[in-house]
């Protein structure tokens, strides 16, 4: 793997972001709106709920972490979609660029774009609504790491899906976070869910993050081993998603899909 090639994929996206307000604004605009909405919601709930309950750290903190995961996933898929929209597959895949370098480029790009979203959320949540990351302790960084890996896994999976099913299947990719969120227990403990949903939840790395976050805010102790499981799952899912992308790409090369990829030829 040559890092310069992966960097080229990320550089292409940087050029696009730099030259387009329509691309740059969504990096932080929607998450900022989320922070404002849920920040005031948390304040209101704090004022009407039993004293001692801290909605800023449970609710607003959860929204911040979930939005971070969503930005990571979209950071990966957006770079890929730019190639779909500009019908750039032939130019990109007829070069020495390997699949691992291409996927590496998607990940490099999302590191930068998701960091912008995280920074804006952090500034708003702390400066306006008094969210303190000290409430999560040293576990906050591992929480972000697990969500980042899971976002990368889902992003790569989404790219593979669109490569296989065609540009119209973008529609399947955008709602994936909404589909996952009831199972991940973003806003409630997993014990709230019926047994079968809990079984699904334990396969999702964010479940470990949000359970841990709530435990820490409530003043309980949270086992790092549990989060290690979440992290391990996320790593396995990144590898599985990469293998899936590679397999779909191989199919596309065998069938000629890469060379004539368009809405007309695939869907």
């Amino acid at each position, binding site marked *: 793997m*040559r890092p*310069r*090639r992966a*960097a*080229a*994929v990320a*550089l*292409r996206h940087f*050029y*696009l972001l730099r*030259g*387009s307000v329509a691309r740059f604004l969504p990096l932080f605009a929607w998450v900022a709106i989320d922070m404002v909405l849920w920040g005031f919601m948390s304040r209101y709930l704090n004022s009407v709920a039993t004293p001692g309950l801290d909605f800023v750290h449970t609710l607003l903190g959860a929204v911040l972490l979930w939005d971070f995961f969503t930005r990571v996933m979209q950071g990966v898929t957006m770079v890929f979609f*730019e190639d779909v929209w*500009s*019908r*750039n*597959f*032939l*130019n*990109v*895949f*007829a*070069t*020495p*660029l*390997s699949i691992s370098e291409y996927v590496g480029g998607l990940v490099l790009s999302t590191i930068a774009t998701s960091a912008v979203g995280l920074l804006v959320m952090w500034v708003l949540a702390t400066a306006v609504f008094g969210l303190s990351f000290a409430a999560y302790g040293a576990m906050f960084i591992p929480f972000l790491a697990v969500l980042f890996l899971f976002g990368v896994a889902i992003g790569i999976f989404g790219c593979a899906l669109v490569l296989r099913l065609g540009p119209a299947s973008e529609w399947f990719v955008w709602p994936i976070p909404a589909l996952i969120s009831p199972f991940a227990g973003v806003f409630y403990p997993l014990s709230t869910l019926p047994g079968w949903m809990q079984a699904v939840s334990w396969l999702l790395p964010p479940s470990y993050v949000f359970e841990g976050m709530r435990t820490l805010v409530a003043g309980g102790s949270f086992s790092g081993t549990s989060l290690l499981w979440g992290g391990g799952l996320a790593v396995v899912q990144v590898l599985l998603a990469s293998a899936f992308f590679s397999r779909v790409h*191989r199919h596309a*090369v*065998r*069938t*000629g899909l*890469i*060379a004539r990829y368009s809405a007309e030829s695939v869907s």
Partner: protein
Amino acid sequence: MPPLMVTPVTTSGPTRVPPTSKVLSVSSLRKAYGGTVAVDGVSFDVGRGEIVGLLGPNGAGKTTTINMVLGVLEPTSGSIHIEDVDLARQRSAALERTNFAAVYSPLPGNLTVAQNLRVFGLIYGVKSLSARIAELLEEFDLVRFRDTRCGVLSSGEQTRVALAKAMLNRPHLLLLDEPTASLDPATARDIRERIRDFASRGTGGVLWTSHNMYEVEDVCHRVLFMSHGKVLLEGDPRTLPGEHGKASLEELFIAVAREPLALERA
């Protein structure tokens, strides 16, 4: 039917440089989609300093062949070597020596000329990239479009950008799929000059497809006529028509398109 007695129309053609080595070797290449055979056991090579025209009617298998050489389509069987590198086994190493421009694959219109060249220059691992970009902008008369988005350029300007990108890594094998389609005659002649210059340097070979027989006769040292996935004829574009009783390359092309079986038997 006996062959017509005609006087072939010939042009002087490009100066023939005897190829010193092969930059592309295609052997028994076949691509089948289920029961449909798109390319059927094609073998040919391209020498260093040589411009080879790949001709044939629509659906003959030219673009399928080029896509296999570009590594974006897996052959059902057969082999492709770029210089001595097996494309199937060492894809990246083989494609580092290759580049292409195709009328149906313009560079992203939402990036400027310089941005596109930088991105692809990094992918191809071009050394001293800034200097190389400046050199190509000069060579292809693109300096004033350096910071212009490719999408707003004219067809001719976009073709020049695509060719500049194709020259970035000083390829040993240059694949050109109808590079002058939709260009005005003056721009097309300009493009042909540049491709001839590239080949005459003797570092790389060119595989060129075109439906403009005048252009092919003017540029190519050798042509391969494809029909129904097979190479039916091969030879010098200036003498091949006469060898098959046709007055011009265009007439030969039409014969290949309409009566491929007769030519195959011949």
